[in-house]
């Protein structure tokens, strides 16, 4: 019973007559890091949004910690693709906004300490009073991470959190994320279309079929020992085997779709996701 922390069963989502996700099944254990990978527009973000409680499902159920998800809750922290900081508030105020709600019993001083502490954890101890406009894109996403972690959620939901960053910043933030995640035994569900990011961070990679009516295609176990070192992971002979599995799955999805039309179109998604490997 307790081993299944999150259970997504037979979940579908339709917008009008368009069925985006159909019969999506996934269960997650406490403390697990799971990535969902798939082509753009396949419905990955819709799944995450349903787990976050921001979008209702059309059919099926999402059970989190024994309770059905119907709305956003304090047990989940969300990191969006864009940092979505409020430009009229400083970094500290942005983080504090959620802290005041999540730790409403604590004194204001303690709340400020919690917010400041989490900004220090993501390396922004010197930028507490800066407005988002004065921060770089990477720093803003750090604030986004701090805001989510400062709520002390059990489950982190990350919607392509580093998709808008250059590859160096992206790797830096992956390290920050993995450190924060390991720190107090959280579970994490992350959307990405970057294969290397998924391999480095996850315990399992869930590959989604191309929409419409997207569902779970394959699930890949990522056996690298933790704590992970980026270099050790890249040097592991298994790495390229696993990487190949994910890549060929994604390529199959595109060919599968293109085959009736006898198309020789390139696979832009697959190409895009390999770009980080070169870095």
């Amino acid at each position: 019973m307790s081993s299944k922390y999150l259970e997504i069963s037979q979940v579908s989502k339709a917008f009008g007559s368009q069925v985006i996700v159909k019969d999506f099944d996934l269960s997650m254990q406490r403390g697990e890091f799971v990535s969902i990978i798939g082509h753009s527009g396949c419905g990955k973000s819709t799944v995450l949004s349903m787990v976050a409680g921001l979008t209702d499902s059309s059919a099926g159920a999402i059970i989190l910690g024994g309770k059905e998800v119907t709305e956003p809750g304090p047990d989940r922290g969300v990191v969006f693709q864009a940092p979505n900081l409020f430009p009229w508030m400083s970094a500290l105020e942005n983080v504090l906004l959620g802290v005041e709600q999540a730790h409403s019993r604590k004194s204001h001083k303690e709340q400020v300490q919690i917010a400041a502490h989490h900004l220090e954890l993501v390396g922004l101890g010197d930028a507490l009073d800066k407005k988002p406009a004065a921060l770089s894109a990477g720093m803003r996403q750090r604030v986004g991470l701090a805001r989510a972690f400062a709520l002390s959620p059990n489950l982190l939901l990350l919607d392509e959190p580093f998709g808008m960053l250059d590859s160096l910043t992206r790797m830096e933030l992956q390290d920050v994320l993995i450190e924060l995640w390991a720190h107090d035994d959280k579970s994490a569900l992350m959307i990405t279309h970057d294969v290397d990011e998924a391999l480095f961070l996850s315990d399992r990679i869930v590959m989604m079929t191309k929409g419409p009516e997207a569902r779970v295609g394959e699930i890949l176990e990522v056996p690298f020992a933790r704590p992970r070192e980026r270099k050790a992971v890249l040097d592991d002979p298994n790495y390229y085997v696993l990487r190949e599995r994910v890549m060929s799955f994604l390529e199959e999805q595109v060919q599968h779709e293109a085959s009736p039309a006898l198309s020789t179109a390139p696979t832009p998604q697959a190409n895009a996701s390999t770009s980080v490997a070169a870095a």
Partner: protein
Amino acid sequence: MSPKTLSDRIIESVVLPLLGVGGVIALWAIISATVAPSLPNPWKTWEVSKLYVLAPFEKRGELDQGILRFTWYSLVRVAKGYSLALVLGTPLGLLLGMSKSFTKSLDPIIQILRPVSPLAWLPLGLVIFQKPEPAGIFTIAMCSMWPTVLNTALGVRSIPQDYVNVARVLRLSRTKRLFKITLPAALPYMFTGFRLSLGIAWLVIVAAEMLTGAPGVGGFLWQEYNSLIYEHLILCIATIGIVGFLLDRLMSMLEARLRTA
């Protein structure tokens, strides 16, 4: 583009505008000398108005005061009506922006009331309040509140879905959402509404004072028309225009400061 020299800039910001003003005054002189002999010419206008301009705060009688003194009365009246417009219009706009059913039920009535002229509101105000002063303020408020209402509603509706999602994920309370997110996010739109409303409030002052005979630029204008001192009409028009322009610039400056903040 090559950098502008100082003399270029002087030509652009001083010489050209002066040429424009000079041209209009010349045209005015020509018109009063030819087709409209009852229109006082520029020189006569100055001669007759001089007393009111050079002693702008002088009070010689109830309806015989310096032009800036009249302007001050009008500004106070506009300030009252405009404040009332903001006090009524801002919450109404917030409600319209936040609730679809509220919009559906009130939008038709707003669209119908919006184009109603101050000349139509004023008699109704006199009927309701039985006194000219509150009727004038009521008229200013009724005419000038709509840009505030509509822009505030637009600002609230234009809040990015991402902000709404963050607010939901952080489970902010209603009041916190209103004060920490909705209002700051809508503020630039609201300020555009405030600026347009002030413009209308000032526009309406003449109508409000004309019909009530209250002392002020508009009341003075109407009285001087009735006393056949047409030079003062032009003085009043110029004053109203300049004050309106200054008010708009002032609001624009506040607005610009707000956007960069």
